[in-house]
């Protein structure tokens, strides 16, 4: 069994309990405008260009059959994305790693080897493995196999998901998943379609089913100024949480512009207007406080926002 991943990150401490290793699976059916991992969207490997690392040796120019590469005036590589076919011929000749393919095919064992190296840390901290992406359920069989392998090794398992998947896929990984970190991106169906490129109805339906099936779920809500950071959406979060009594809680994730430098590396157009800034700590506190007043159980809320802060 093989699948496509684009990173394995050890000592992840923000995605589920304890010390974790997060495996990032490649491929995602959504196109959120604020996507912070654009390299996770396409299922195929993506060419990353970091001109700063280029030493101007010209090896790649010869390797590229499409003539997509050139050097600029300061002897740094530039790429013509319109010509590049992501064939992968240039990175092997680029020793300084200015050109790199992001995304690779790996077997379950290849993924599990580094994951298992931190076993003692998981045991001591109540941590484990988290699948993220992209959308892990974009590769349901592979995700399922990884979760099974982790479970067999006695690890706690968590899955970060947008919930946009066949119910059968969710249902199939459910028994091997100790915790779902389930995204709730936008309440208004039209806006959801506009922001993410997909409807929210199937996501909500899956959420209800997952809840009914007894899964442990933490609802995670990215809060993006000028997009979904509105009272109506907060009300929607509160309403949804209210309908799901066994929900562990709600965690608000405030927007950050850290993804923008990555867009450039992969040649993606910037889709977020410059005006969208990370919210300040005060705004984040207010959102949390608003939800707290509505009786929502909050997780990892900033101090002062709610009197009692729970943890997953």
């Amino acid at each position, binding site marked *: 069994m093989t699948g496509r991943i*684009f*990173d394995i*990150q*050890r*000592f*992840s*401490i*923000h*995605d589920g309990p*304890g*010390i974790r290793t*997060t495996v*990032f699976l490649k491929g995602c059916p959504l196109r959120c405008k604020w996507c*912070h*991992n654009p*390299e*996770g969207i396409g299922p195929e490997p993506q060419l990353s260009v*970091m001109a700063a690392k280029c*030493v101007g*040796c010209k*090896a790649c120019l010869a390797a590229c059959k499409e003539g997509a590469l050139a050097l600029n005036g300061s002897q740094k590589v530039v790429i013509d994305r319109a010509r590049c076919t992501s064939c992968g011929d240039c990175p092997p000749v680029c*020793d*300084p*790693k200015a050109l790199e393919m992001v995304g690779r095919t790996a077997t379950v064992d290849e993924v599990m080897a*580094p994951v298992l*190296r*931190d076993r*003692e*840390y998981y*045991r*001591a*901290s*109540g*941590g484990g493995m*988290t699948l*993220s992406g992209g959308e892990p359920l974009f590769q349901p069989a592979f995700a399922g196999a990884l979760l099974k392998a982790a479970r067999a090794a006695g690890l706690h398992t968590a899955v*970060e998901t947008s919930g946009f998947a066949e119910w059968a896929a969710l249902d199939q990984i459910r028994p091997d998943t100790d915790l779902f*970190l389930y*995204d709730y991106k936008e309440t208004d169906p039209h806006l959801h379609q506009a922001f993410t490129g997909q409807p929210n109805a199937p996501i909500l339906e899956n959420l209800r089913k997952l809840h009914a099936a007894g899964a442990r779920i933490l609802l*995670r809500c*990215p809060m993006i100024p000028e997009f979904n950071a509105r009272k109506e959406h907060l009300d929607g979060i509160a309403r949804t949480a209210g309908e799901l009594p066994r929900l562990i809680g709600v*965690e*608000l*994730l*405030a*927007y*950050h512009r*850290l*993804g923008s*430098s*990555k867009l450039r*590396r992969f040649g993606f157009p910037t889709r977020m207007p410059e005006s969208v800034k*990370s*919210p*300040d*700590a005060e705004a*984040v506190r207010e959102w949390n406080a608003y939800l707290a007043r509505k009786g929502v159980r909050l997780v*990892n809320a*900033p101090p002062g926002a709610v009197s009692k802060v729970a*943890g997953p």
Partner: protein
Amino acid sequence: MRHGRPFSRREFLLSAAAAGPVFAGVARPSTPALGELRRDILASMDYPRVALHRARVFTRVFQATEDKPWEVRKAMALREHFRTVPLYLRPGDSIAGSISETPGAMSLMAELGFGEIGTDMNPQWRGYLKGKVPPEIWQYWKTRNLWGRFAAANPGQRGPISPDSGQQAPYKFISNQGHLSPSYGELLKIGLGGVLKRVRDRKAGERDPDKLAFLTAAEESLRGVSEWARRYSEVLKGDLARIAAKVATEPPSTFHEAMQLIWFAHQAIHIEGHGWSCAPDHIDRLLLPFYEADKKAGRLNDAQALALCENFVLKMHDNTYWGPLELTQGLCVGGSTPDGQDLTNRLSWLFIEGGANLALPEPLLWIRWHPRIDQKFFDFCLGRLAQHTCFPLMWNDKAVPDGLMGLGVSREDAYNYIAVGCNELAIPGQCYFNPGATANSMRAIELALTSGKGYRGGGKNPLASPAAELATFDSFAAAVGAYLRDGIERTYRDDMLVLKATMEWGRTPFTSCFFDGCIERARDMALGTKYNILSCGGVFFANAVDCLAAIREVVYQRREATLVDVAAACKANFQGHERLRAKLLAAPKHGNDDPRLDDIIPLVERLRDTPMKEICRDPRDGARFGNVHITKAAAVLTGRVTLATPDGRLAGTPLASSVAASAGVERSGPTALLNSVCKMNAAKSWQSGYQVNLRLQNVMLANQGNRDKVRAMLNVYFNQGGQELQINSIDTEMLRAAQKNPGQYRDLVVRVAGFSEFFVNLTPEMQDEIIARTAH
């Protein structure tokens, strides 16, 4: 932030946490008086000042006592110094006793040597000694002090340096060895008077002239210290006067008295010349009975005890100053007994709390982790780390005693170990750190690559086959081993010459009174303590691992270059060899838990250990050497003058300061870093200590949820045998800001490979190095 790596969703949020980073390193003294004392001490440290009273007295007394044994003359001079040195007390100070007659000034140790120290760290202070040493002092001592006599006895070795040459002096020639911890248990029981009586009792009837000389010297210096304390009682007022008068001879009965007595003894040791890296025994354990008795009697509350602990920490800081260099004073608290009982007590908490409140780069604060450490105390320490940015540092009782026992230390004594200096180990009153050889693997690799010539030429006889003929990786490793053996042999020979001179002219009869058996045997500690464990210092371990790994992969496995190519590329600082450099850089790097290094790590250890064990023996009793990792500022300073290295490092850039990873190559997070360290054999290859630096973003320690995870991680690391750990709690943004606006960040303390410093005092280069070390 990790640009270019996928962000977890939670990381994506980070703004909430990043919005308000805790400003680490801000002082919060617990009383206004301590705040004033702190300000006064820091204000006097703006420029290296030299105090001359000691040198004047020593010159006078030595001139008048030519016929007496050296150590007796030294003790007479010391006593005369204590009888005449002008006294002062800083505002807000409740503990009397200072290093010299001038606030913020270090005494010139004329009988040892002249020369500047530490100006490579602060080049703007080069020449601070110039014109400060009166010619009659220099004239008298230049052939008579330790350094002068060493130079006369060892023609060809570096000769005495004049105070006006502005030259760097090896510290051993301008201070005694230091790196020790006296044992103060007996002193607290019987007082200075009691110790003096022991010396006199031992002296009665003694006929052996050497023994008599030692005992006379001990007696003289003990009397001098008592007289010094009594003089303080005459100038002080109220309770402070009473305390000083009492502890001048009598044992203490209260917490404050005990602390004052320890301070007098400790300061006197410094003045005698052993102050470098001196730790005052297990101070929390020693003071506990006094603290408990005072509390029971209603004489002391915790706020008062904390204030005294802070005062003590400030005294140690006041004491650290030697020219532009800190003397790495340290306090070590906590730890366990050989059967695993936790020895952490209330005072361990108070010293950590006091240290954090003062936010000073010195003294260093250490804790000893052990499997049964009170996790609340451990959490408290990590929380204070967020406040203080680097303290406490940690040693592991599960690793250190094993190494010492391997060198013949009894189990009970091994568990009594203590931290001294940057990352050295000692046992109070029984064994002190003393380097006796150096293993420079990087130089050995260079020589192996260049058939013994070195990149700059000038190497002597080749000791192995020419590089072009080293057909296998094993033969290359053997060549490295041959050059390393040669280096160890030569440095051992040189260091033993220094040791011999120190045994003769570096005796310290006062300090010896606090080392087991010195009084009974009537013999100075320089001639041997209970355990004589010298150390072979290894440098730049992580670079050596990376170099061998890169050479194996690129030269021997992929056959993409030859050793000769690698040597040429290093020599050229990789100019015109960029692709080769990229290949070398792409090889596995230590610190990332890479299984491809599993055999290289023990190889690098073995290449040093094997010859070291054959060559190095203590000349006094034949004891085996331990291995130690040498750091200090070497990583940056040596890096500056080191050409490019086969791990892909460019000329002039820093070498590895931590044994965990070379500068800027750790990419896999802290668990991978710690796993890498655990592949090293602490007990067999690092008996005298190594050093691991881990940088954590402040929010990892300031936030309870994160801190619990960090604590869990550290428990795993120590349980798996990690010997030592130092954490820098840093916000990279903050460091950049501090670089831009030093004025606003005067208080920011960072740990620089073995010592800590105010960040703004570092050279821009060192600041960059700190920033470059990957933050997690």
